[in-house]
């Protein structure tokens, strides 16, 4: 650290006059800034939450803030990986936690029991990709022609053989010397990758949810390369989805995301999806049930509003989530003139949180 290393020796005592003048200016600036930082409606109750990153855009939407404000709440959120929320995040700083799946919430509940939780919406796991990649996957038998179905069984065969993109026959559009792997978030931190682990292990386990330690041990060698071979992966699904959108095919040819993230872009007034963006649905996939866990009584208010307030429910649908009542979701899709998402039939349950923890330990994640 040589930069600025000599500055301390340059300290000088200011003349009293200058110091006083500076103090006055600073006092003015500080007081003005404090004033500026105070919220316009001071009667609102501040509620802080730690949430899965994919819900950040929803909570940042002014319309959502307005509904909360109309109900007396000023909701402020930080994002963190769902597993981090249950393990390393200092929960005393927050009034509620909003991880992205029921196993993640269960893990949290085991440490912080609470009488009520709220599951206002869910979203299936999906693969965001690009048209040229869909063509290559179709020729490789991973995507059924003309469908949005991403066949996990065929994909896992290719991955098990460490197939590289440049080894796919006739591939001139993306001849990357890089393994054909779905990009995920850091499985040790983030829920979306844990959900992917859930349905990948289901296939490896002979089409059955892994349910005991013997099953965990049996599937680990086959699922480990799916994560390890990717190398470093981003800590949150929002970052992954952004990388997919902004850096494009070379960085993230296939991204494991929530359907909601992709739909939210399609539904937005100013979509930023790349022109050749495509969405695929793994078969099987998992529905991730986003579950709010109140940590303080005021956190309950957020959970209640998200579950019962019709405006908020309509807004969750605008952000691509599927509320418990399917109608607002269908309305949002059709109102925008988008094709209805395919009916997902091959849907499996994620493993329970303790089994999931066992698998993560097998992958080298710290408890």
């Amino acid at each position, binding site marked *: 650290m040589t930069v600025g290393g000599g500055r301390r020796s340059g300290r000088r*005592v200011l003349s009293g006059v200058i110091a006083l003048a500076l103090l006055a200016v600073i006092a003015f600036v500080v007081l003005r*800034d404090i004033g*500026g930082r105070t919220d316009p409606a001071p009667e609102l109750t501040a509620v802080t939450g730690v949430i899965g990153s994919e819900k950040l855009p929803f909570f940042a939407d002014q319309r959502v803030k307005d509904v909360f404000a109309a109900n007396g709440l000023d909701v402020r959120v930080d994002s963190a990986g769902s597993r981090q929320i249950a393990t*390393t995040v200092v929960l005393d700083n927050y009034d509620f936690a909003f991880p992205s799946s029921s196993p993640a919430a269960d893990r949290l509940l085991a440490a912080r029991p609470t009488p009520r939780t709220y599951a206002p919406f869910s979203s299936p796991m999906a693969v965001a990709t690009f048209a040229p990649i869909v063509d290559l996957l179709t020729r490789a038998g991973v995507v059924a022609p003309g469908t949005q179905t991403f066949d996990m069984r065929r994909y896992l065969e290719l991955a098990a053989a*460490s197939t590289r993109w440049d080894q796919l026959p006739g591939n001139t559009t993306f001849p990357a010397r890089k393994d054909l792997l779905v990009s995920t978030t850091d499985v040790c931190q983030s829920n979306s990758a844990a959900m992917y682990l859930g349905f990948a292990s289901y296939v490896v386990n002979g089409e059955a949810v892994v349910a005991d330690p013997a099953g965990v041990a049996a599937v680990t060698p086959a699922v480990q390369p799916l994560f*390890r071979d*990717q190398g*470093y992966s981003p800590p949150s699904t929002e970052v992954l989805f*952004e990388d997919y959108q902004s850096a494009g095919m070379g960085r993230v040819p296939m991204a494991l995301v929530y359907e909601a993230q992709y739909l939210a872009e399609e539904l937005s007034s100013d979509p930023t*999806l790349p022109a050749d963006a495509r969405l695929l649905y793994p078969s099987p996939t998992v529905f991730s049930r986003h579950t709010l866990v109140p940590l303080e009584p005021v956190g309950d208010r957020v959970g209640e509003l998200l579950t019962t307030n019709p405006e908020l429910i309509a807004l969750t649908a605008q952000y691509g989530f599927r509320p418990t009542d399917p109608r607002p979701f269908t309305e949002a899709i059709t109102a925008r003139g988008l094709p209805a998402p395919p009916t997902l039939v091959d849907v499996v349950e994620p493993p329970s949180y303790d089994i999931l923890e066992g698998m993560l330990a097998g992958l080298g994640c710290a408890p």
Partner: protein
Amino acid sequence: MRRPAAASAAVALIAAVALLAGCAGSPEATDGPTEPEPGLLRVLAGSELADLAPILDEAAQATGVRVGFDFTGTLDGAETVASGRADTTHDATWFSSNRYLALQPGAPAKLGTATEIVSSPVVLGLRRSVADALGWIGRPVTWSEIAAAAGARQFSYGMTDPSASNTGFSTVVAVATALVGSGAALTVEQAASTAPALKDFFAAQTLAAGSSGFLQDAYVRRATRADPGPPVDGLINYESVLLGLNAEGTLPEPLELIYPADGVITAEYPFTVLASASQQARDDHRKLTEYLRTPAVQQALMDRTFRRPAVPGVALAPVLGTATLVELPFPAQAEVVDTLLTSYFDKIRRPSRTIYVLDTSGSMGQDDRIGDLRRSLAGIAGADPSLTGQYRRFRGREEVTLLPFSSTPGTPQTFVVDENDPGPTRARIADAGNALQADGGTAIYDSLRRAYDIAGEQIATDPDRFTSIVLMTDGENTEGSDVGAFRDYAGSRPADLRTVPVFTVLFGESDNEQMTEVATLTGGRTFDARTAPLAEVFKEIRGYV
């Protein structure tokens, strides 16, 4: 969660007064204010972000949140965060990447929300005429082709030390992944590879640096003939830095950017609030990152600093290229990265020759200065257990000469560190350091001349090394030839010695002006051991030799 405004203001005022008392003038320009202050984020950061100052000034106007940068290297920063030392002194980090940091035990738990602001891939910039002669303009070029041309010495380049700076570090990972990797993240076995292609690539490196800023300056000085050494053909750095150099117009010949077709490593600049930060700091961080991610600011970041926008929907400027950049997988296991770096330093990189010219005059007996010197040598001979220390030791294959001096140059002792078992040679260097005794006068320039003579003899025997001289003295020249004589010598050095820089250490009562002149004359730089521990300075210099 909100404190009454009056109390906040009082706290803020106290903090402001404390800050004012600590460093008169501009609080942003300190080496890391340690007192928390509302509206000021204390950020541990990579030094290349200094160019964001104008945009951050505008951000402060718009959001009321200022940034106080404390610049440090990639590994140093990772160590500071992982050890918990940053918990009380900083609110956030802003490095080119969190990838290395995430591998340190305990580090992920230290980090809160990480928000990517911009990105920039690490690529090779080559003088246009050289790129043209190699036939590399307008077509995809792979790392294998680059390594083959490097091995044949068809071009030369400069790169930072991978233990000091992210660009050098990213290059080592990219080259190894592309040349010996299988298409997945490197394994430990692959990371230990000493394949000829790897050695070929690093053989063409003729300029080394412990910081990105020094590398850039040295490259420009060589290109404009302000430095004595011959011009270097290329530079490995961020796309943003290379495009910035071209835009400045100081280079006699613009750089052609080579984006290897088999992949790059991209820095994604996550602005990361620390888990230990206060609610106020987290709010400030959120406010500032939201501002920096608005489309207009993203556009400004791209237009003014050539970094790529992180937020989707801001179209890439044409100068940033249209090619699909394949991102190479970055190893996510600490063991792989450690193995790779150790192998790089001890077995793969171009070996170094380092001559330490060490003042052992009588004044070194004061204040245990000689003890400081002995311990500093022992530190880089392996006694320093820190993260950076393990990569800045005397390296496998390195030729180390200790030349103590007082009234005259002493007897030089030369060691060649064993490639496969470096420990015993390092121990002998530490022993030689321990035997140094303080006595006599100070013949700086006679000794420096002697060091150049030694370098000349050693180069004649074995030319293919990075040769550098480190000069440590605690006082003024009292015996033998003077700085004027050295000035004359420096201008008339034979060609093979013109590329040998002197890195000077300011210590005790050394003559700041003369030490700076010696460094400037030879293309080196000064290091200040009066404000930092001598051992830290000795370690830092390792990034340059």
